[in-house]
């Protein structure tokens, strides 16, 4: 961020700085995550088959997955430095690492791979019921485990986390909209000859995510592992709070594939919402009758494709209108404004997952007690349904306003204050449509995961 006033730097607090420079960070969090992960793996592969009795299902789909967007928004990709898979990657590399350069096609098409794998996993969850099946969860975890180990064995740094992890696209988009950033002081860095932050030194390895902090404009890949804080001999690194979504309007380079995922996510979040609604099965039957098909999976696939394609088509339509004023190419303008829907994506996902956390939150306690042979009974809800619904409405409204504001700021920073309203108007209409659809989806009660 090229702000004129000096940003707040949390590393100026000696306690924070010494903690982040110590080996305790992020090790202490990694150990905790690893212990929970080990239990989750065993439970997913060998625990009870009923999801309501399985700790892995509760820990993964009621707590971890719903909390992820919140973590990304508040702390950027901090989770990625704690994630057990990143540690597994490091260990595999230490033991067997051939440390090869990442192939060009992975660098070039990494984000598309992430997009496609994310879409495939979301689709397959609905077809094969991964979330409802502890063994399904186990299969996904084992495949990821193997993928992380294999890439760690062959390629340098955290190739999996940076280029392949299917959550990478979502995590980078949400982290970019978030409230925290790690940046370097470019004035100091320009005088640095060693670039220890990238290369590493005796204090810590270089950036595992292939980032050079002085050149970093986005928080898409930074996982706040603090390696650069440990290795920098000039104390050039700062960690600062920032206005949410500000990164989208201050960036100099927009990526089509990031925007594409953001827009597709509008549809995916919508599909996730409607499949959890009690009216979903009758809706699917209606589609089957309408199209004259008798296979529920085909009906869902058609719905899924339409839900993903519709937002893309709508944003392209808005772009086609706005480019008359801006004179930009369709692809460039699409890439720039696609980021505007991220706040609404995030809000939709938070609202959706809020239900799982608050309506099924006690499942984590019940299933945890189940590990010790105790069977708990009672309501799984932490708060009542109407309370959750009000919170969901609030989130969707906040997300819609966030997206409107982001679209306006993107237009303003790219085309000036004079054109900002007219350029952003077509996007306003589309964002309001997305917001209304999301709002309506939450007026109907959702089904539970457990």
């Amino acid at each position, binding site marked *: 961020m090229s702000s004129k006033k000096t940003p707040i730097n949390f590393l100026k607090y000696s306690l924070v700085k010494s903690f982040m420079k110590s080996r305790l960070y992020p090790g202490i969090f990694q150990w905790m995550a690893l212990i929970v992960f080990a239990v989750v793996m065993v439970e997913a592969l060998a625990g009870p*088959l009923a999801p309501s009795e399985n700790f892995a299902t509760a820990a993964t789909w009621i707590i971890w997955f719903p909390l992820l967007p919140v973590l990304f928004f508040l702390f950027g990709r901090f989770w990625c430095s704690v994630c057990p898979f990143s540690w597994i990657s490091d260990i595999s590399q230490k033991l067997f690492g051939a440390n090869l350069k990442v192939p060009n096609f992975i660098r070039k098409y990494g984000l598309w791979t992430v997009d496609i794998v994310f879409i495939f996993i979301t689709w397959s969850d609905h077809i094969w019921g991964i979330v409802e099946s502890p*063994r399904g969860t186990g299969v996904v975890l084992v495949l990821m485990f193997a993928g992380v180990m294999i890439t760690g064995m062959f390629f340098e740094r955290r190739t999996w986390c940076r280029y392949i992890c299917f959550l990478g696209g979502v995590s980078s988009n949400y982290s970019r909209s978030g409230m925290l950033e790690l940046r370097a002081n470019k004035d100091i860095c320009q005088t640095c000859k060693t670039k220890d932050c990238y290369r590493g030194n005796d204090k810590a390895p270089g950036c595992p995510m292939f980032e050079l902090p002085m050149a970093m404009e986005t928080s898409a890949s930074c996982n706040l592992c603090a390696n650069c804080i440990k290795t920098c001999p000039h104390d050039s690194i700062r960690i600062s709070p920032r206005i949410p979504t500000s990164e989208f309007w201050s960036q100099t380079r927009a990526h089509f594939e990031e925007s594409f995922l953001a827009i597709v996510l509008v549809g995916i979040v919508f599909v996730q919402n409607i499949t959890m609604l009690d009216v979903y099965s009758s809706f699917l039957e209606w589609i089957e009758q309408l199209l004259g098909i008798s296979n529920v999976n085909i009906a869902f696939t058609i719905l899924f494709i339409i839900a993903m394609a519709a937002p893309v088509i709508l944003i392209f339509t808005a772009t086609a209108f706005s480019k008359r004023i801006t004179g930009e190419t369709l692809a460039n303008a699409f890439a720039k404004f696609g980021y505007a829907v991220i706040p609404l994506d995030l809000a939709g996902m938070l609202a959706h997952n809020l239900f799982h956390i608050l309506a099924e939150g006690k499942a984590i306690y019940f299933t945890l007690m189940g590990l010790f042979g105790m069977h708990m009974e009672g309501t799984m809800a932490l708060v009542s349904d109407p309370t959750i619904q009000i919170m969901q409405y609030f989130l969707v409204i906040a997300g819609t306003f966030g997206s409107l504001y982001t679209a306006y700021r993107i237009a303003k920073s790219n085309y000036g204050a004079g054109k900002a309203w007219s350029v952003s108007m077509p996007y306003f209409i589309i964002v309001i449509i997305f917001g209304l659809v999301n709002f309506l989806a939450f007026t109907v009660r959702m089904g539970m995961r457990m």
Partner: protein
Amino acid sequence: MNYRGKPLKRVLFYLALLIFMLSFAANVLASGGHEDIKQEEKVGNYQVTMETQPEIILANEKATIKILVKNEADGQPVIGAKITNKATMEKSNSTSSGMSGMEKEADMDEYVETVMNERSDMDMEPGTYMAEVNFKYPGNWEQAISITSSLGESTINFPVSVSESGPNYAFLGIVAGLVVVAAIVAGIIKKKKYAENGGVL
């Protein structure tokens, strides 16, 4: 970085061999248990044969229920019938220890209702109807298959036993085998790089 050349390679080789043998054995064992079983019953004007695939049905994994419906009088296949399968399990039949756990399940029997579709594929006998059923819990389920056709309406019961499944060792073995092979290849590349760079990685 430490590099432990030959001993490491040897250990990995034998480990890979072991895992491959285990996964092969597991695959053979796993495939051995997937034969069909048949149950035959007569009800009303119908003669019904039911098969399940796989033979050992596992909880929370899809199983195919296939029935062949014939006219009991002349043995001709019954085509164009409307058939539904309502599988029910009383909670007392569950072999799952924690079934009484959650609020939403309290005092409820489990049931799955599916429509059985007629199959007219070349390799299927006429009068064959199939459906995929996901039995959520292990235990004894009762399938009430209702048949409606010009021969009248009848319901026939077929019991089915659903087992609790453990880890899929074949899958785990194959994945572990792949990881070991990758480790061997990565080790070889690492050794080559080590030699090319004069003992420095």
